[in-house]
């Protein structure tokens, strides 16, 4: 199996200037390396500030990496100019967390879903419409949805629309940045099932980012645990959950509340500054 996406030593440092011009550096991502093969589903799990979303933003180049390389099919795409990157953007798409702000309230679902293909160019209106209908059907929405506005849909339905939009350009890699975190459990189950079906039907490669270990376990074959901008441990999801080798991973698993799991008496419930 050849590597589809290779991330090597990726680092992102944010510089903020304080009140008196004092420069503060925040290492959002610190030397992360990751290889994703075609057809894999990789889960990235970690608590807030661990750098998981920064990693997603760097891969789709919403932000520029400070150092390191990103290779797609062996080709270095880290420093491509926007014009050179444009044809490659088709291959990597992203779904964001917030189902409310990820769809423009002024556009109809038809316009929203058509966007990526329209930007790509070279497709007739009819082709775009047909593909939009096919994808909406695949995510369980009626074609009538095309003429409606985002506010007419529930959070779960909007998230499915976001997924349909991301799939318009037939991407190979779909990055899912906390796609179900804002949803109710029964709706989350719907979206996760749809994602599982789509992956099978369209032979997609997933990079699934979540703070929820159980969700990551459900959707991905490989799990990467991150903390403070670094990879703590990675491996097959089963192994990470049943036999974690790092203390932090164990703590994380231990802290997840589960039905039927007895309440844990903490040795040290205190928190300090």
């Amino acid at each position, binding site marked *: 199996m050849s590597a589809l996406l290779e991330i090597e030593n990726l680092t992102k440092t944010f510089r903020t200037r304080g009140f008196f011009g004092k420069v503060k550096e925040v290492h959002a991502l610190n030397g992360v390396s990751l290889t994703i093969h075609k057809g894999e589903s990789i889960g990235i799990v970690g608590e807030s500030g661990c750098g998981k979303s920064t990693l997603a933003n760097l891969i789709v180049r*919403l932000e520029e990496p400070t150092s390191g390389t990103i290779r797609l099919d062996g080709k270095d795409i880290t420093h491509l100019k926007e014009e050179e990157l444009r044809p490659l953007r088709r291959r990597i*798409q992203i779904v964001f967390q917030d189902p409310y702000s*990820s769809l*423009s309230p002024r556009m109809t679902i038809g316009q929203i879903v058509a*966007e990526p293909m329209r*930007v790509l160019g070279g497709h007739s209106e009819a082709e775009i419409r047909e593909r939009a209908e096919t994808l909406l059907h695949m995510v369980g929405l*009626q074609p009538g949805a095309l*003429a409606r506005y985002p506010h007419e849909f529930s959070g779960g339905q909007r998230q499915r629309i*976001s997924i349909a939009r991301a799939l318009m350009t037939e991407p190979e890699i779909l990055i899912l940045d906390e796609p179900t975190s804002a949803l109710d459990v029964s709706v989350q189950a719907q979206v996760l099932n749809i994602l599982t079906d789509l992956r099978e039907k369209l032979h997609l490669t997933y990079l699934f980012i979540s703070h929820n270990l159980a969700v990551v376990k459900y959707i991905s074959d490989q799990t990467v645990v991150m903390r403070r901008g670094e990879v703590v441990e990675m491996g097959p999801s089963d192994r990470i959950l049943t036999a974690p080798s790092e203390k932090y991973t164990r703590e994380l698993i231990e802290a997840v509340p589960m039905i039927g799991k007895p309440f844990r008496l903490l040795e040290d419930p205190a928190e300090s500054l």
Partner: protein
Amino acid sequence: MNETAAAVRPSRWKEIWEIALRNKLTLTGFIIVGLVVLVGLLAPVLAPYDPNLMDIPARLQGPSSAHPFGTDEMGRDILSRVMYGARISIAVGVIIVAVSAAIGVVLGSLSGYFGGKIDQAVMAVTDMILAFPSMVLALALTAAMGPGLLNTMLAVIIVRIPMYTRLMRGQVLVQKEQQYVRAARTFGEKPFWIVARHIVPNCLTPLMVQMTLGIGDAILIASSMSFIGLGAQPPTPEWGAMISTARVYAIDQWWYAAFPGLSILITIMGFNLIGDGIRDILDPRSRK
């Protein structure tokens, strides 16, 4: 899942009409502005006299069946002059707002979206203009360029641009961080189209509110300038200019200043009423 296909939706204009009907005050605003525009457009048909026809023997007559609004010091029919005045005032208001908003939107969008040097330059000029009281600045500019309606309009436009620039820049800064704008970037959408297709439409509501209120303001400023003698020059039947001439007769011939003044008041009120209600009309969420 079980969405029903979208029912046949009423056309957009019908929806706008229904929302306007729901709010009585907004509807009043629309009726007032509609009437003023209609009167202005049809002035040549509706006006009983030529607005500049002098009839010295009939000078300074009070309201009568022949002259419902009375006559001025040259015996001209005030009703006819007020009707023609509607033309000028509406045109002045609309042109000032259209031009200043267009320039302001472009500058504000550039400034907000790209930031950096462009932003610093645009905001420096904007802040400078905003530092002056707008009336005083408009006065100074007109005085420098010379009196006249066109110069007044130009001056008011310059004074008004920064308001739209400011508003637009703030809106763009907010919209830029919205997920749908970020999503558009991941499709490879070019910056121009991101601004034009995603950001500007979502800034329209506050912009339209500001613009509608702005028409009223612009009419008021332009009339004030004419009143001081810098704007429209007599015998142009401009409301502000008419009141200016009427000052001398204000005590004995009340109708001379009253009717143009009332016209200004009603017109501005009409625009303000629309401005208050327009938010509901433009928001797609307020439609069913």
